[in-house]
């Protein structure tokens, strides 16, 4: 298996889409619809990234995964910050693995 090809291929197909808007999209005056669309992208992306893959985060333990994410959500709602959310979620998942 050609490792160089794999890394180079993945790097290219990742980098080029990231780069294209920087070099191609020079227009400052985007139509309002496009602006709204682009501004909604972060939340849409995050939603689609968390589910469904988050459920399989801990191998073989979907409910532990969901619980970890739920704890992270609660900690975020409490405005405790990213670090607390990540550590809290992982900690909760670990605790459940110990107990169950």
């Amino acid at each position, binding site marked *: 298996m*050609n*490792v160089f090809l*794999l*890394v180079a*291929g*993945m*790097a290219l*197909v*990742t980098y080029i*889409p*990231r*780069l*294209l*808007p*920087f*070099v191609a999209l020079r227009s*400052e005056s985007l139509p309002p*619809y496009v*602006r*709204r669309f682009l*501004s*909604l*992208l*972060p*939340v*849409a*992306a*995050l*939603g*689609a*990234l*968390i*589910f*469904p*893959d*988050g459920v399989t*985060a*801990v*191998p073989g*333990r979907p409910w532990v*995964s969901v619980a*970890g*994410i739920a*704890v*992270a*959500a609660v*900690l975020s*709602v409490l405005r405790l*910050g*990213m*670090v607390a*959310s*990540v*550590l809290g*979620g*992982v*900690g909760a*998942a*670990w605790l459940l*693995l110990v107990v169950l």
Partner: protein
Amino acid sequence: MAGFIAGLPVLMGYLPVGIAFGLLARTQALPAGLALALSVFVFAGAAQFMAVGLLASGSAVWGIIAATFFLNLRHLLMSSSLVARHRFPAWLSPFLAFGVTDETFAVASSAPTAASPQKNGSYVLGLETAAYTAWVSATAVGYSFGSVLPERVAAAMGVALYCLFTALLVPRIRKAWFPAVVAAAAAGINSCLASGFGVAPGLSFVIALLASAGVGAAVAPNAAGKEAAA
């Protein structure tokens, strides 16, 4: 610099996720060089985890590359969103583009637009540098030392990436109900397509993104449609 400080939460979020990746690569018997090269040259957490999984199940190289393309296609939209809001120095753009990830995008798109392209550029560069150095070093640490972690700790660390996404999402949906609906729609569409219809993961992501943000932008109530809501 201000960008680097803004990137500290991402840096700290990336540490457990990067360690989890390094550890996963090691347990799947990937060579150290490959694990590190993926973090150094691809710099895309979700895609790297996916690649390790695909390698373990014997996928061909071209299949993994194609899957990576679709999975990371959302970064095209993220870069577009950034460029729409900020101006950056032309010479810096190739470097800034490299560091566009889900997390750096989420933080960068919350940043106020600075007066000059220089300031915008150095802010995002600082942010991405914090994220990148954390990601690469955490990969190395996870690969080298991850095996000293007890099995349950290592398993629990699998949620780290999703907790990071959650921490980025919550502040954005607490202010207004409409973004929450869009996020839920994207999650629902992605889940249906990937699980229910067996659509390839990267492709289902992009469809879910385009559909939810596309329809959302069309029907957005004025208050939630403002760029500030992003």
